[in-house]
């Protein structure tokens, strides 16, 4: 085992023992299997509470699981997985041929180590941004010019202020901005789809998969898409845009501002949208059965406690919330007695 081979590394990183890693892997397999019972869950929590090493091993499990999860939201996960699988099968065949024809040289170095460890941090590029919030966290900060920014869950942005402009680069999530006046320097927000110029004071910018959502609550904001199309969005309006297209303006959703106060506002929207929103605040898996996805939802729900929000949904709708474990929950139709 490499653990005994690298005592220095073990000392530096406080690496959990092989046995602890094995236990963590077994807990993971049981908890995600769908067959875990309440009693399993209780035992797992007791195991977690037992030792810091257990929690550390579990943290590693979550990191690995997250890496796979980033592929779940790709346009076609099945195709993505199959593409990867085919490429791996070909590689294995080629290596086998190579082994048959020549001395096995340096093959132990191939595989995982072909990727420099530095690619791990790059994977989480957004998380090296100057300002960021954790999943489930909503926080606010004041920039040098007095501009106030609220970060919604899992948001990240960089601040580039100079003598000519005040520019925020949004990398992930959603921010609500109340700009401070500055006659000399325009206030700009850049997203992958385009650039926003504040002509007024209060607005939110939210990154979605392939587009940006802008909602304006005071003043006005000018959008310039990456392809050069421009439009001004007035207070009380919101608008989505991609790199090439501007969607039509619609009334600003109150929810786009209410999150600042930790409230999820639902006014006659389908359950799938509410769940989509809660997923952003909650670590781990939250499944939704298709037969209940279109139920309409009214109400205000606490964002700082997404699990309490799930309970409230459970009272208000004919649904059942099943929790396999804290980061693994699913919603389906209630079983009628």
């Amino acid at each position, binding site marked *: 085992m*490499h653990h005994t081979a*690298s005592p*220095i*590394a073990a000392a*530096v*990183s406080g*690496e959990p023992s092989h046995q602890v*890693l*094995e236990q*963590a*892997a077994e807990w993971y*397999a049981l908890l*995600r*299997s*769908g067959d875990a019972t309440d009693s399993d869950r209780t035992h797992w929590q007791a195991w977690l509470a037992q030792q810091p090493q257990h929690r550390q091993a579990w943290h590693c499990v979550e990191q*690995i*699981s997250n*890496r*796979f*999860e980033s592929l*779940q939201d*790709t*346009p*076609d*996960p099945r*195709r*993505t*997985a199959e*593409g*990867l*699988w*085919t*490429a791996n*099968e*070909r*590689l*294995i065949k*080629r290596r086998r041929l*190579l082994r048959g024809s020549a*001395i*096995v*040289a*340096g093959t132990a170095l*191939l*595989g*995982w*180590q*072909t*990727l*420099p*460890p530095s*690619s*791990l941090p*790059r*994977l989480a*590029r957004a998380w090296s941004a100057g300002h960021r919030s954790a999943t489930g966290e909503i926080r606010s900060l004041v920039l040098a010019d007095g501009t106030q920014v609220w970060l919604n869950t899992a948001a990240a942005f960089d601040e580039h202020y100079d003598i000519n402009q005040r520019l925020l680069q949004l990398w992930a999530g959603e921010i609500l901005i109340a700009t401070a006046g500055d006659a000399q320097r325009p206030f700009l927000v850049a997203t*992958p*789809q385009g650039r926003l110029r504040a002509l007024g004071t209060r607005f939110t910018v939210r990154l979605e*998969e*392939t587009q940006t959502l802008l909602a304006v609550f005071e003043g006005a904001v000018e959008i310039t898409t990456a392809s050069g199309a421009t439009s001004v969005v007035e207070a009380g309006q919101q608008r989505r845009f991609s790199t090439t297209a501007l969607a039509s303006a619609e009334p600003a959703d109150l929810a786009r501002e209410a999150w600042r106060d930790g409230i999820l506002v639902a006014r006659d929207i389908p359950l799938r949208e509410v769940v989509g929103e809660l997923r952003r605040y909650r670590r781990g898996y939250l499944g939704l059965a298709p037969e209940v996805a279109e139920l309409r939802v009214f109400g205000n729900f606490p964002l700082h406690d997404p699990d309490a929000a799930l309970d409230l949904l459970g009272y208000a709708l004919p649904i059942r919330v099943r929790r396999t474990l804290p980061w693994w929950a699913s919603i389906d139709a209630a079983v009628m007695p």
Partner: protein
Amino acid sequence: MSDRGLGPQTDVGILYGEHHGWLHKWLWRRLGNATDAADLAHDVFLRLILKPAPRGFDSFGATRAYLRSMAQGLCINLWHRREIEQAWLDTLAARPEQFAPSPERQAMVLEALQEISAMLLDLPPKAARAFLLGEVCRMTDREVADELGVSSRMVRKYVAQVMLRCLQLQARDTAAALLDPHLA
């Protein structure tokens, strides 16, 4: 590691002088691209520094055979990385452009794909496939079991096996980065 008399650095220095030009040409012919060839030739010698050949070399021919087989392995890895990239681009191309993820996200997914590919490579194929289907396609153990023609208990074993392997690789990787800043 270097109890063979000469330190590994010196060995590689001599090897480099004698074989680098030849290796570069060999790779160039194989890859049809001078830049890729230069990168891989460089990589071969870097690997020799990091992990010297187990018993040294007793002849000119043996040295070249060893270098060639290392270079061959690196070519295969390069093609593999390009294939994963191509498969991902094909997946994206199959969708209307307005639904494409942002360039940043595309790059992140590609990196995740390369990492996951490497994580799954040395695992038993059925276990790797069970993990991939369960994690990426969000399939339950039962669904995975039906597709692979095994029991769901077996799927759970596979998942635990792969997770343990990934944990070990991650630990090794972290240790390597801590011990060897040149790799970073």
